[in-house]
Structure formats: C-alpha cells, structure tokens
C-alpha cells in the first residue's frame, strides 16, 4: 500500500531524511519510532504530498506523490502534529467543511460526519466552538477529520501527544479498531505506544532508518534478557557487598551483577539474566536463604533510550549481544 524507496529530504542546510526505504502492506499498523528531530514528521509530510522529496520516491496505492498528488491525497487521511483546526468554527461545521474539501458528495457529508463523531466520541461537542475545546477533544476532532473520507491510508503524527492516560488508552483502541480497513502509519517517540498498537515498527534516528521489524521480533531481540533492580537490607550487622555479589552471581540464569549503591547496611544491585531466563523468583529465594532482607525487587524495562543506544551501537558494527558475551 505504501512504498518508499530511497527517500531523501534536504532542507536548506540540514539533511532531514536520508535514503529511507520501506514498504507497508494493506491493513497493517506501522509505528514510526524515533526521538524528536529524527525525521518522522518530514517523512510523513512527504507521504501526504505536503513536501516534495529531494530524491527517491514514495507511492501510495500505486500513485506517486510527485506524479499524481491529487490521487494520493484522495486516498490519505492525515493528522499533523498540531491538529489543523479552525478555532472560530464549530466542530460539526468544521467536519462538514473538511468532508466537502476531501471530495465527499453533499449527500454523504452529514452521514459521514455523524459516523466519525460517534466513532471518535465527539458527538457531545458538535455544537461547540473548536477554540473552546480541551486538548483531548481537539486531538479527537483532528483524528475525526483524518478518517472522515474513509481513506485507504491514515498518517497520524503523534496521535496521543498531550492526552491524559485515559484518553491515550481510548485513542489507542480507536486506532486499533481502524486497522484492517485502513493502512495506518503512526509516529511516536513513546515505545509503549508502539507495543500497544502497532504490528510493525520502523525506527529512524537522525534521518536514517535504524531498524524495521515486527514488534515481537524487535522486543525479543532487544529485551531477551531480563534486568532486575534489587535492594538488600541486613538488619543485624553490616553487609559485605562483595559477598552479596558473589552470592547473586551464583544464582542460576544470572549473567552479570552490577553494584549500584551501598549505604550502611543496605546495598542495591542491578542483575541481568541470560537470554530468555526469568530470574526473579530464584533471586528472591537466594537472598532470603542467605539471611538478608529483600527490600526491593523490580524488573527494569528497556527504555527507548537504551534501545537507541543499542541500535546505534549496532550500526557502528558492534553487535547488540556484545554486552552479554563479554560479561557472561
């Protein structure tokens, strides 16, 4: 459905997108992941015909963004980073305007507006001025605008930014319910966002494609080992952290132990497991068995930053697994 080949976009001095190629199948939800300034928005703007590419090509449903922009635009719904809303219009009025702008026939407009209002849960604010809406409602009106003409492809630029947790969950559910009929590309810099709603991930950094894979593959690859933060307390007498460390290293499945902090009779560690091993139960047993008190035991997730560090390190020729191999 979406085919991008060697896409490059250069602004006056900066190279925003550097030779990116990817394809998206019909009905898929793809997450576009990257830190701020990575080139996500630029790529999306090229896909939606807002910006022309400097080099390379992008095709939507077989139509090139440069050759047949009108055909592409008919098939795309786009929610930019800031929803494109007119504050002095009422919600219903705005959606009718967008509907006609997108080429819906006059008979279809009210029907579709009703449908998307229900779908995006904005029916209760239809008569309100957009300028008076809260951020969450505005975002949803933006989303309604994008799906109004029932486009084949939806391009959503950070659809959940600025929403409260409840709204984030609702928006995610809405996006997932749209998959199947629509091919969706959504950009975000939040990893959990991608995990929750996307089937595939495309990671870009500094304009370059860093990785593209299914979510499960990628998380397996990067989060194959479990990391656990541990704080141990010794009620009677001081704690010899070297001894504790030795004890922890002996636990089956532990690959390496890092001492984080020591304070009086407590010390904290970060423990990493071998690939695919769960070690929390074993660790707890070992600590209690040795007569110490277990103050804290919590799994540490890989943050987006870690993934990026790992992926960019891998780019430079260092394998992702290096860390485990050396310390094991």
């Amino acid at each position, binding site marked *: 459905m979406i085919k991008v080949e060697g896409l490059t976009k250069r602004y006056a001095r900066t190279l925003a997108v550097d030779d990116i190629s990817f394809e998206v199948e019909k009905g898929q939800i793809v997450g576009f992941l990257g830190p701020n300034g990575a080139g996500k928005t630029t790529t999306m*703007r090229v896909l*939606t*015909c*807002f*910006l*022309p590419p400097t080099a390379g090509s992008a095709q939507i449903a077989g139509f090139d963004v440069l050759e047949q922009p*009108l*055909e592409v*635009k*008919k098939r*795309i719904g*786009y929610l*930019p*980073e*800031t*929803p*494109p*809303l*007119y*504050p*002095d*219009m009422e919600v219903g*009025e705005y959606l009718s*305007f*967008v509907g*006609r*702008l*997108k*080429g819906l026939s006059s008979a279809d407009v009210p029907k579709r507006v009703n449908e998307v209002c229900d779908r995006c849960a904005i029916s209760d604010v239809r008569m309100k001025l957009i300028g008076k809406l809260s951020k969450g409602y505005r975002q949803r009106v933006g989303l309604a*605008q994008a799906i109004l003409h029932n486009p084949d492809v939806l391009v959503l630029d950070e659809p959940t930014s600025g929403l409260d947790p409840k709204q984030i969950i609702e928006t995610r559910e809405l996006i997932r319910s749209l998959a199947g009929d629509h091919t969706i590309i959504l950009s975000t810099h939040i990893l959990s966002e991608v995990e929750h709603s996307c089937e595939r991930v495309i990671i870009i950094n500094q304009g370059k494609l860093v990785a593209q894979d299914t979510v499960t593959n990628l998380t397996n690859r990067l989060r194959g080992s479990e990391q656990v933060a541990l704080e141990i307390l010794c009620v009677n007498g001081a704690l010899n952290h070297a001894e504790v460390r030795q004890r922890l290293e002996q636990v089956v499945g532990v690959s390496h132990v890092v001492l984080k902090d020591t304070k009086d009779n407590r010390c904290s560690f970060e423990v990493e497991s071998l690939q695919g091993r769960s070690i929390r139960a074993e660790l707890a047993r070992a600590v209690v068995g040795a007569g110490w008190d277990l103050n804290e035991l919590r799994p540490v997730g890989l943050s987006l930053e870690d993934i990026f560090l790992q992926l960019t390190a891998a780019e430079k020729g260092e394998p992702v697994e290096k860390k485990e191999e050396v310390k094991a």
Partner: protein
Amino acid sequence: MRNVIVIFTKEMKSYFASPIAYLLLTIFAVIFGFFFYSATRFFVLQGMQMQMMGRGMPMDVNEYVIRPLLTNASVIGLFLIPMITMRLYAEEQRSGTIELLMTSPVRDLEIVLGKWLAALVLYAAILGISGINMGLLFAFGRPDWKPILVGYLGLMLQGGCLLAIGIFISTMTRNQIVAGGATFAVCLMLWVLDWVSAYDQSAWAKVISYLSVVTHFEPFAKGVIDSKDVIFYLSMIFFGLFLTSRSVESLRWRS
C-alpha cells in the same frame, strides 16, 4: 469549481464569524457617511449661493457629489484591503491549517481563487453600504445612474487587483501584522506612483505612472469605461493571482 466554492464558503463564514467583517463594514459606513454628509452639504450650500447670485446654472449631482465620493470610496478601500487579505494565508500558516488544505485533494489554484473570491465579495459588501447613501441621492434628486454603475465597476476592478496583491503578500509570511503592513505599503505606493507625471515627462515616468492604480480609476469615476483601464486591472488581477499560486507552491519547497 466545486472546490473553489467550498473554500469560498469557508472563508466567508470565517469573515462573518469573527469581528473582522463587522469592523470593516462599520469603519466604511462611518467614514463614507462623513464624506457623503460633507459632499452633500457643500453641494447644497453652493446651490443656494448660486441662486442668490441669480445665476441659475444647472448643478450636476454626478459631477459635484458622486464623482468625488467614488474617488473617496476607493481611498477608504485602500485602507481596508490590507485588513481583508492579511489573514488569508498568514493565519493558515501560523495555525498549521495550511497542512490540511495542502494535503486535501484540491489544486493550489482552487484554494487561491476561493480565497480571493471571498475577499472580493466581502469588499463588494463593504461598498454595498454606500448604496444606502446613493439611494438618498436618488430620493431627493435625479442623478444619472449609468455613471454610478460604471464607478462601482471601477471600484470592484481596482479592489480585485489590490486584493490579489494582498493575498500574494499574505502567502509570504506567517505574521498577519507583517502581511497587513506590507500590503498597505504596496497599495499606497501603487496609489501615489502617478505623482511622478507631475514633474517628469520622460518615458520612464510614463511607465511608472501608468502602473498607478489611481490613473486607471479616474475614467471610471467620470463614468467612462476605457478598455485599456479594464485590461490593466484584469491583467493586474491575473498577475497577482498567478504570483499567489506560485508562492503557495513554493511554500512546499521552502518550508
């Protein structure tokens, strides 16, 4: 064409949903009303003096009231036009709604035309207020209606040309004040360009004063349609709209 109407309707609604339209209508009504009052008072006074001096010379309403009024209306228009056009593109760029317009299946030129037509209709509505004053002249006198019609045609042509320039300037900035200020400066320059003909008779001076919008309006105020003036205004409108659509296209390459 359908897309032009969609954009036109939206712009019209947004003029009348905000205070802009009402403000401009009020400004014009007050200032033009004052001009009208002064012109008619002066006309009546002159008429009485003529009678007292025993010279029953026929006084022409068209010549002494309507013609200066139409010229005044075009001066007021000069001040109002930047306020009509400044928001058209600058606001869309600032609020990001330009992304909606430019990613919709609509040609750039259709958007430009829709916006220009909306501005033109608002300008016509503003001029329409002066119809009340003109109506009063018809109620108490017998002015000739044909030169008045020609005068309004001239006002519309001149307005259309300045509006096209205003829209073009509005595409070049995200800041409405900058757009408005620059449009006013350009309109004023186009206005006073004919002054060079007062002290210079060279070929250059002729070209420059030919560009002045006011030299082409004067015949209309007299009730004369000269094809060279009509062609001047139409080509300026075309040129302004062409520049606008090129400038909108270049937004994609520049941003």
